[in-house]
């Protein structure tokens, strides 16, 4: 059984972080340069952490698998970033952002972590503006805000539909400044294949150079993983093709606990699948629901073109079911509603697996130019993919896998249960509970990287006696041999199915049984089917190409091999959690009107899974969630 200490500081909620910062040990300025920190991943969390740690004086080695750190998938985030600035004077506050986030997560996140997130949210906006991030502004020169799901205030800052891009380029520029100053050593086109522990502490990683195939060891005093989420387990998701779970999975297999793996976010507004060739799904930002209205025809089999269906024959179901939040109901709720409508036979489009997102009324009210200014790039993206003009025809949308709330377990300092291994951003489990609110991922990634890890890592380094280690250490030799052996094995199978074929099989099992709606029979079925695909993978996969050259198939094979293990853990966790909460909907646990029914008496905990060896069942440890301030309530958006 794991011993998990969340290290949540005592004292009143509002003062926990301030008190904690004072109590954290410091590394004096002259000593910082004696420490090396490895940061894996260069998205919002990784880039902001790398830049901030290097500015403080640490030696940073940063890694990404892409050809440039600027390409990490945070770049694709569209809608915005939340902060409790209350610039619109509509009643926002740190406490309200905190409350909305806890409630949005269906009361399955830690109060103290989320409160800190809300506290530092305002610093993030200040920092980004100082870097020259071109947020949207009003004519008076001040920053503009819009609304996002699950909130009744306008607290979302944005840069057209490319907020993630602009924030990431800000963090990337801060990082490149440190590269230029020699404080960060950048390793692009590197994939982390192993985490290396010495005396139980994280002391380095083994990577593959994706250009030359070379296996390399990198030594450090602490390791930070900011490697994103694992949505690609499903094959089709809004993640980038390269987004993967290998780094966190290797850490799990070295003893890091994996928390709440079943908490997956299915985003309600994505462009529907068009055929079997589909390689990924494209998100249409939640911000569109500020002005777009979601509807399906009232009658089944109404095949009239949308423009010929009069208002009285339309069911604006989100406005009908959730009158106070309407089209801005949170993601999990909106996704399930879309599924219900399609299951009722009222879906639209050729596949009938879509609902309309209609801008007709907004265009009439505000004019086409205003809509173009707000969402121009999204409309253009939609048209390129579907060949339909959303200014004239309503968008067709359907839910798709988008984000994973689960991830490696971390304490209040963002350190996993392995000393020295820190986990930031989507890769950890910490702040979003069972459902993340829109525009909160960017906030969390940057909060972790700019404003949390710079304080907490010093406490670890100052408080640890780390022996001097170099890459000739046995632990590194062993990890290199492990990584090389696995690659050799993958290339030697020479079977009959491609990596993509097997990945698609896994994805279908996950979507059918561990997707938007889950039940005991389906989850048990998944637990039967996934090991079969895994076995076939290791006996019948075909990976061509060479080990010592750029070989994208080999990269993909290693990632899919890990998804085939992680998928099973997700199903196991979903089976164990017999309540519905947030994005985890167990059909056995629902109210009469099909809303998620939580079971606080039995499931108000974080499920932290521990690896026990191949072929052995993992063991689950519960971290009970204590709510001191917030009263656990039924989550209602009606």
């Amino acid at each position, binding site marked *: 059984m794991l011993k998990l200490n969340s290290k949540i500081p005592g004292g009143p909620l509002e003062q926990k972080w301030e008190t904690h910062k004072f109590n954290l040990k410091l590394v004096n300025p002259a000593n910082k340069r004696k420490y090396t920190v490895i940061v894996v991943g260069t998205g919002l969390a990784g880039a902001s952490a790398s830049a901030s740690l290097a500015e403080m004086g640490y030696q940073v080695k940063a890694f990404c698998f*892409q050809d*440039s750190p600027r*390409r990490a998938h945070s770049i694709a985030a569209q809608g915005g970033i939340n902060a409790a600035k209350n610039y619109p004077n509509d009643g926002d506050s740190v406490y309200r952002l905190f409350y909305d986030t806890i409630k949005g997560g269906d009361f399955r996140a830690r109060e103290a972590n989320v409160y800190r997130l809300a506290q530092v949210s305002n610093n993030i906006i200040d920092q980004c503006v100082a870097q020259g991030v071109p947020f949207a502004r009003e004519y008076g020169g001040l920053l503009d805000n819009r609304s996002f799901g699950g909130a009744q205030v306008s607290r979302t800052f944005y840069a057209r539909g490319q907020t993630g891009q602009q924030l990431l380029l800000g963090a990337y520029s*801060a990082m*490149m*400044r440190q590269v230029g100053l020699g404080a960060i050593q*950048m390793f692009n086109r590197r994939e982390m294949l192993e985490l290396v522990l010495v005396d139980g502490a994280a002391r380095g990683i083994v990577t593959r150079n994706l250009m030359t195939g070379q296996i390399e060891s990198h030594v450090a005093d602490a390791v930070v993983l900011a490697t994103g989420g694992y949505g690609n387990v499903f094959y089709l998701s809004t993640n980038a*093709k390269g987004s993967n779970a290998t780094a966190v999975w290797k850490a799990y297999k070295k003893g890091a606990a994996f928390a709440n793996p079943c908490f997956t976010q299915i985003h309600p507004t994505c462009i529907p699948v068009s055929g079997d060739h*589909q390689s990924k799904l494209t998100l249409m930002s939640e911000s569109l629901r500020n002005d777009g209205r979601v509807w399906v025809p009232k009658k089944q089999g109404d095949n009239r073109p949308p423009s010929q269906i009069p208002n009285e024959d339309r069911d604006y179901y989100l406005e009908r079911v959730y009158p106070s939040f309407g089209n801005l109901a949170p993601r999990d709720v909106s996704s399930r509603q879309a599924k219900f409508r399609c299951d009722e036979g009222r879906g639209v489009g050729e596949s009938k697996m879509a609902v309309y997102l209609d801008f007709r009324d907004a265009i009439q009210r505000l004019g086409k130019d205003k809509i173009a200014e707000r969402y121009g790039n999204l409309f253009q993206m939609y048209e390129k993919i579907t060949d339909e003009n959303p200014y004239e025809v309503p968008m067709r949308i359907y839910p798709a896998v988008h984000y994973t709330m689960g991830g490696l377990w971390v304490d209040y300092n963002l350190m996993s249960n392995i000393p020295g291994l820190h986990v930031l951003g989507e890769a950890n489990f910490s702040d979003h509970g069972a459902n993340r609110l829109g525009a909160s991922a960017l906030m969390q990634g940057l909060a972790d990287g700019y404003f949390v890890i710079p304080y907490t890592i010093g406490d670890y380094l100052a408080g640890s006696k780390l022996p001097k280690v170099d890459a000739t250490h046995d632990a590194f030799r062993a990890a290199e041999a492990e990584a090389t052996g696995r690659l050799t094995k993958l290339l030697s199978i020479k079977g009959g199915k491609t990596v993509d074929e097997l990945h698609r099989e896994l994805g279908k099992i996950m979507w059918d049984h561990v997707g938007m709606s889950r039940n005991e029979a389906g989850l048990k079925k998944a637990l039967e089917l996934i090991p079969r695909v895994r076995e076939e993978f290791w006996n019948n996969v075909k990976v061509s190409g060479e080990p010592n*050259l750029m070989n994208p198939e080999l990269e993909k094979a290693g990632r899919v091999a890990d998804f085939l293990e992680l998928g099973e853990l997700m199903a196991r966790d979903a089976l164990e959690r017999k309540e519905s909460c947030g994005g985890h909907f167990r059909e056995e646990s629902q109210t009469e009107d099909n809303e998620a029914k939580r079971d606080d008496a039995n499931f108000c905990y974080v499920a932290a899974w521990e690896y026990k060896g191949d072929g052995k069942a993992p063991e689950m440890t519960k971290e009970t969630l204590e709510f001191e301030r917030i009263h656990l309530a039924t989550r209602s958006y009606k």
Partner: protein
Amino acid sequence: MSTTHKSLNLTLKVWRQKPGAPGRFVTYPARNISTDMSFLEMMDVVNQDLIKKGDDPIAFDHDCREGICGSCSMTINGNPHGPDRETATCQLHMRRFTEGETITVEPFRARSFPVIKDLAVDRAALDRIMAAGGFVSVSTGNAQDANNIPVAKENADLAFDAAACIGCGACVAACKNASAMLFVSAKISQLALLPQGQVERERRARNMIAQMDKEKFGNCTNTGACEAACPKGITMENMARTYREFLKAELSKRH
């Protein structure tokens, strides 16, 4: 859904190259390609066939497949990112092509972008230009309140237009001189338009342009091929602004 979707049979002439060896074009059939596929999905289909046959699949860079990460980098029928304006390769759809067509696919060609394998090139030179000055020197923490720095909406919008650059390098590949001026000017322009960028304005222009020269990108001769190839619509107006910035920086240099 497009009501006109159908399938195409195409011939591809693809550049194949391993490091340290000369490259060559190899011809591959691409059969039963749905017009709803993106160009990269078509490449996936061709690669699946190659793997099944035990051949080495074609290496190419790609990641987000929604036109924002800047990874994809193919020159299609002589055009970086293909024939459509303001469209990255991943957003180019096969409905743009016709039955029986032969399509030539090459890497982004430039002296500063060495080929790694097949269609994948090394664009790290662009990162090194950014490291030379593509930033505002502001360390984390203690930034003033965001609304203490008002920015006229017109300038914020222009800065955004420049900041939309995805760093793909199509401008370099399109330019007969392999100049990176459009890329460099997008960043110089963004920061020159904003109050936050003023303090380092001159240093930035000098250092980024010096690094561009050091990386052996060619000089700009204002042909405009870069603007035509840019998937994000970055305009040559940014280059005009950059020349002014550079001239001002050079004239005011204190030795």
